[in-house]
């Protein structure tokens, strides 16, 4: 505060944000946004109920993060905890796709796909339904509290809370069998964690989409900052074509000026682009951090241009370069294929194919070998040396499998597994339950007379008795 004293002017550090009252607008962008909203929300709310048969031993929910059993299911894909790198890959893919989208047409993510945008749009529609459009809302908010104002507010907030509650409710359905959980939730017998998560997500949805809205995009989200650093002059952005719009003037004045041959821009300064903007900015100030590029100002301006008899597209997707080019009298140019987009596309293709390859060649049996350390080796009465290992066999298939264990690497080396009776040619057969793992204690013995010195490499081989899938694991045999 003493710093404020040192300043000569008395400007406060903090400017409370002005509430934004976005006006309703109709047009192709608005329609596209509605369709995307329906698709996104439809997928989000309905996906947990989609079934996907995986046989009798596995859950039949298409998308399920089964935390209790450490499995993630996505249609035909099943991921075990140690395969979490698939998620890393997905995140890398998502990042590059975001970069590519940005290089092609700016903040497509922010304007159309981001959950913050989608839910805010939905909440705004609810607000409009109960409280009317922009002017009505402004007037009512400025006016005194009346019964009419009260019930509209109450209905709006209750509807918001209901949507928010459904949002949280749908979220927890991804973590348990959805129909069962819905029944449990309805009868208040669901786990406490489910209610807690629903409460948390109800609160965040209500707060972020209902109250904070554009503030999230302006102040909380890191993407605008990253995006601003990533963008270039060749990316399509929602652009006010000031080469066409300026000098702005009133409709009548423009007619008069044009009649006498004076220059007059197409912008009639009607403020419609500002009124419809969900972040409350003026696109005519140029591209800016606060613009989420939702395209609604394009719709608003096109409607006005139609009415004023000028051609549409005073605001539209364009590049900063093209505006300069037109001003300089050059032809416009847009190159969606350029070094930046090609590099991103190649990176996406690389990461994507690496993941696909990994998925296609994914092993459904794996072994992890742990050498027992106490004791590292045992001398038997006939002088042979024995090492003990704990071998965990992972069966990632939905049926019971018979795995044959063998060991190789030293002459006369042989393996026996504790607790397994069956053998195939003297090699132990381990039965592993569907979609689970089993640890077996294994003794590896080298007969006397084989020269052993310290440690020597050996390899364990696990093979499926029927399918023939084979995996190997390198380890060491310890000797005195």
């Amino acid at each position, binding site marked *: *505060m003493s710093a404020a004293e040192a300043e000569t002017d008395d400007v406060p550090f903090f400017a409370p944000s002005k509430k934004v009252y976005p006006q309703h607008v109709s047009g192709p962008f608005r329609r596209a946004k509605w369709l995307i909203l329906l698709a996104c929300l439809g997928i989000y709310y309905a996906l947990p109920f989609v079934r996907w048969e995986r046989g009798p031993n596995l859950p039949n929910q298409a998308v399920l993060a089964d935390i209790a059993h450490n499995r993630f299911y996505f249609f035909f894909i099943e991921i075990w905890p140690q395969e979490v790198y698939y998620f890393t890959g997905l995140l890398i893919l998502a990042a590059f796709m975001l970069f590519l989208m940005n290089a092609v047409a700016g903040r497509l993510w922010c304007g159309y796909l981001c959950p913050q945008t989608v839910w805010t749009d939905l909440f705004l529609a609810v607000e409009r339904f109960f409280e009317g459009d922009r002017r009505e809302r402004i007037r009512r908010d400025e006016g005194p509290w009346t019964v009419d104002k009260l019930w509209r507010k109450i209905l709006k907030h209750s509807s918001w809370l209901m949507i928010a509650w459904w949002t949280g409710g749908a979220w927890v359905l991804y973590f348990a069998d959805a129909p069962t959980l819905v029944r449990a939730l309805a009868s208040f017998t669901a786990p406490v964690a489910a209610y807690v998560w629903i409460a948390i997500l109800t609160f965040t949805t209500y707060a972020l989409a209902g109250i904070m809205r554009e503030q999230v995009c302006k102040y909380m989200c890191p993407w605008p900052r990253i995006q601003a650093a990533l963008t270039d002059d060749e990316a399509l952005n929602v652009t006010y074509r000031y080469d066409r719009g300026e000098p702005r003037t009133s409709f009548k004045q423009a007619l008069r000026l044009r009649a006498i041959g004076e220059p007059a821009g197409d912008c009639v300064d009607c403020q419609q682009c500002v009124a419809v903007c969900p972040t409350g900015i003026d696109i005519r100030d140029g591209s800016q951090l606060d613009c989420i590029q939702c395209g609604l100002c394009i719709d608003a301006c096109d409607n006005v241009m139609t009415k004023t008899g000028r051609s549409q597209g005073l605001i539209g997707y364009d590049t900063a370069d093209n505006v300069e080019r037109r001003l300089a009298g050059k032809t416009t140019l847009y190159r969606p294929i350029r070094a930046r987009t090609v590099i991103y596309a190649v990176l996406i293709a690389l990461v994507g194919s690496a993941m696909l390859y990994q998925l296609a060649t994914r092993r459904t049996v794996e072994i992890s070998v742990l050498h027992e350390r106490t004791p590292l080796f*045992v001398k038997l*009465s006939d*002088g042979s040396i024995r090492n003990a290992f704990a071998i965990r066999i992972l069966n990632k298939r939905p049926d019971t499998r018979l795995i044959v264990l063998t060991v190789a690497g030293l002459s006369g080396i042989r393996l026996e597994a504790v607790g397994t009776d069956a053998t195939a040619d003297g090699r132990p057969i381990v039965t592993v339950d569907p979609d689970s793992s089993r640890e077996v204690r294994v003794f590896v013995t080298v007969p006397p007379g084989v020269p052993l010195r310290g440690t020597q490499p050996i390899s364990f081989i696990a093979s499926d008795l029927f399918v023939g899938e084979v995996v190997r694991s390198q380890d060491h045999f310890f000797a005195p």
Partner: protein
Amino acid sequence: MADPHNASNEIDHVTGTATTGHEWDGIRELNTPLPRWWLNIFYVTIIWSIGYWIAYPAWPLISSTTRGVLGYATRLAVEDDLAIQKAGRAVQSAELAGATLDQIKADQALLRIALAQGKSAFGDNCVGCHGIGGAGSKGFPNLNDDDWLWGGTLAAIQTTLQHGVRATTDNETRTSLMPAFGRDGILKRNEINAVANHVRILAGQPAEPKADLATGSRIFEQNCAVCHGPQGKGNQELGAPNLTDAITLYGNDLASLTETITNSRNGVMPAWGERLDATTIKALTVYVHSLGGGQ
């Protein structure tokens, strides 16, 4: 602004906030009270703490603490947790208690429970001598190998565990006493040296060049063969070790053998039946049997 805390009633023109009237080198201190919500929460926590003192153990006294009306104590909570654990295992424990050793060995589910319980009981009671994983050391048998003093079948291991070895408190204990041939004057020094060399030969080790092997063989026959057998193959009934295999408990170099024959060894193990319940003994039996030497 008739704020009683504001001594000066002076308003800072930049912030519009009252000052405390304190000034240092022209810098005045703003009177910025704690936010109301913060203070209220603080008062609530004070009220809460009073309830807490009454409900829970709180104030230290000279030898203990105030008890609290809820009767809560961390020690009791631990006991409750233990009881819950025990109750959770009740079915499995009962199954284990009712099953024979062979039944346990045949039933995968029972075996898993027995091995888990055996492993933890082994860690609590046995590792002190036999080492982690039963690796053993000089004088303490390695339980992973296939050489047994008193037998390596499930039944033999159970008996050994139950009654111990040379346990003075148990009448059925495993017992046998090798005489201290040197200390008790049964054998002379040169005789001990001869028989030690004979044992080296039995174990397939080279004897001393000048050793009197004939005497050694004769003395072995007269004194040792009764327990260890004429070929030195040992006798598990008597806990007499096999002297011909690759495993020794106290070493089979000449010095160790001389020491063993002179003073005798006679290792001991407590009779665990006195300390552990029958189910734990069973679990330990199965665990030791599973280590690798079970017969």
